[in-house]
C-alpha cells in the first residue's frame, strides 16, 4: 500500500466532484446537528424530570369569600373547623409524606415575588389570595388518586397537581425533540442518497483509471479505498461542522434558557452527543460509499 498514492487519488476525487462533496458535507452537518439537538433536548428533559419529580406538590386550594370555583359557590370562605378536618384527612392518606399550610399572607408574598404583571400586582390584595395545603407525596405517580379523593371535600375549591403544569412544558420539549429527530432522519436519508450519487459520479469519472487498475491486478481494496475514503472525509468534515453547530446551540440556546431550567445541561453530555453524532455521520458515509461501490465498481 502506498499511502501518498491513495491520498492523491482521494484528493483528485474530492476536487472533481466538489459541488457534490459540499452537498454531502452540508447535509451531513445539518442532519447530524439536528440529531444532536434532539439528543440534547432528550437529556435535558430527563434531567428536568428527575429534578422536578422530587419537588412537585399537590396544591389543595381552599375557598375564599366570593370564590368563583364551583364547589365554593353558595357558601362563604372555608371555616376553621373545615380546615382542621381537611388537614386530618390529608394526613391520614397513605401516600402523603407531609403537608404544609400556606396562609393568605404567604401566598401573597409568593405571588408578589413571581408575578411580573404590574397592573395585576397593584390591584391584588392579600385577601384575594386563596389559602392552601401544600401536599408532598411519597410517590409522585399516585397524585391522581390523592387529587380525586380530596376534590369535593367541603371547603376545597380546587386541587392542582404541579406536575401537570410541568407536563405541558415537557410536552412542548418532547414535540421539539421529535421534530428535530424527524428532520434528522430525513437528512440522514438525503445524505445517504447524496453520497451514493457522489460515489457513482466519482466512479464514472474515474472509470479509465479503475479499468486499468483492474487490468494490471490492483487488489479490490486498493481500487475501492479511495472512494470509501472520500465518503469518510466528507462525513468527517460534516461531523466536525455539526459539532460546531451543536456547541453554538449549547452556548446560545441551552445556556440562555438555563435560568428557567433548574437542571443545566453539562458539557460532558454535549461532548458525548457530539462524539456520538460524528461517529454516526462517518459510519453512514462509509457504509453508503461501500454499498454504492459494490453496485457501480464491479471488480
Amino acid at each position, binding site marked *: 500500500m502506498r499511502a501518498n498514492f491513495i491520498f492523491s487519488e482521494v484528493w483528485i476525487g474530492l476536487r472533481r466532484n466538489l459541488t457534490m462533496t459540499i452537498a454531502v458535507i452540508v447535509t451531513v452537518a445539518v442532519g447530524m446537528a439536528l440529531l444532536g439537538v434532539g439528543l440534547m433536548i432528550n437529556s435535558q428533559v430527563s434531567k428536568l424530570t428527575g429534578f422536578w419529580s422530587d419537588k412537585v406538590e399537590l396544591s389543595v386550594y381552599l375557598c375564599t369569600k366570593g370564590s368563583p370555583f364551583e364547589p365554593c359557590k353558595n357558601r362563604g370562605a372555608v371555616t376553621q373547623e373545615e380546615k382542621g378536618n381537611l388537614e386530618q384527612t390529608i394526613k391520614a392518606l397513605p401516600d402523603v409524606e407531609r403537608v404544609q399550610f400556606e396562609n393568605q399572607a404567604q401566598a401573597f408574598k409568593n405571588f408578589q415575588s413571581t408575578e411580573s404583571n404590574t397592573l395585576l400586582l397593584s390591584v391584588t390584595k392579600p385577601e384575594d389570595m386563596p389559602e392552601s395545603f401544600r401536599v408532598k407525596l411519597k410517590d409522585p405517580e399516585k397524585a391522581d388518586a390523592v387529587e380525586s379523593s380530596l376534590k369535593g371535600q367541603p371547603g376545597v375549591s380546587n386541587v392542582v397537581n404541579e406536575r401537570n403544569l410541568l407536563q405541558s412544558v415537557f410536552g412542548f420539549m418532547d414535540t421539539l425533540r421529535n421534530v428535530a429527530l424527524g428532520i434528522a432522519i430525513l437528512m440522514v436519508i438525503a445524505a445517504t442518497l447524496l453520497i451514493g450519487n457522489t460515489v457513482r459520479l466519482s466512479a464514472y469519472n474515474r472509470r479509465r483509471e479503475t479499468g486499468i487498475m483492474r487490468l*494490471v491486478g490492483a487488489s479490490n481494496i486498493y481500487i475501492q479505498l479511495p472512494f470509501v475514503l472520500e465518503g469518510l472525509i466528507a462525513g468527517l468534515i460534516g461531523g466536525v461542522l455539526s459539532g460546531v453547530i451543536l456547541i453554538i446551540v449549547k452556548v446560545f440556546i441551552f445556556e440562555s434558557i438555563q435560568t428557567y431550567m433548574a437542571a443545566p445541561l453539562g458539557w460532558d453530555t454535549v461532548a458525548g452527543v457530539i462524539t456520538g453524532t460524528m461517529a454516526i455521520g462517518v459510519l453512514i458515509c462509509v457504509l453508503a460509499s461501500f454499498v454504492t461501490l459494490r453496485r457501480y465498481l464491479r471488480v
Partner: protein
Amino acid sequence: MIHFDNVTKVYANQNRPALDHVSVDVDKGEFVFLVGPSGSGKSTFLRLVLKEERPNSGSIHVAGKDLSKLSNFKVPHLRRRIGCVFQDFRLLPNKNVYENVAFALEVIGKPRRFIRKVVPEVIELVGLEGKAHRMPEELSGGEQQRVAMARAFVNRPMILLADEPTGNIDPATSIGIMKVLDRINRTGTTVLMATHDAAIVDSMRKRVVELEDGKIVRDQSRGVYGQAY
C-alpha cells in the same frame, strides 16, 4: 500456460454461444495469433483468460491455476501475471509516459525504488527512450501503443494478451509494434494476439488459431491468415 478444455460461453439474452466447446493449449513462451471475423469469439476468449467472464461449461487453466477454483479475492493476483494491450491503448491522458507505466506498478503496491529502476528499462525496451516525459496526446498512435505495451510488460507477466493491437495503426508502424511484441515474446513471455491483420499474420509465420462462430476451425503452427480473407 493457457489450457481451455471444452469451454462454452453463452452470454445472457443470447441464444448463440460466443464460444462453443473450445479446447486449446498454449505452451509457455509460445506466440499465438487468434484470428477470425468480428463476433467469432476472439475477445470472449481473452476475457475468459482474464477471468472477466466465467464459462458456462468446461474448464480453464491459466498459469497452472484452475480459474473455476480461483476465488474472486485472488483474481487480481492472476491478472498481475497477465499483461494486456488493446486497440484503443487505454492510457491515462493526464499522466506522462513514465507515469502511465509506473501507474501499473504503483497500484499493485510496488516500492518506489523498484519503480524508478524498472520503468526506464521497459520504456527503452519498447523503443521510447527520451520520450518518458511526453504526454500521450503528444505521441503518435504507434508510440501510444508502445507505451501501452510497456505498461503491460513492466510487471514481467508470464502472458501478454493483445486484442487487435495494430487495429488503429498504419501498416508501416504496425511492423514496429510487432517487433516489440516479438522482443517481449523472446524474453519467455507467452503472447496471445487477436487480430484481423492478414499481412501481419502472414509475415510472422507463428501459430494461428482461427475461430468462426465460436468454434475453432483451424489450429496451425507457422500458419497464415487464410485464403478466405
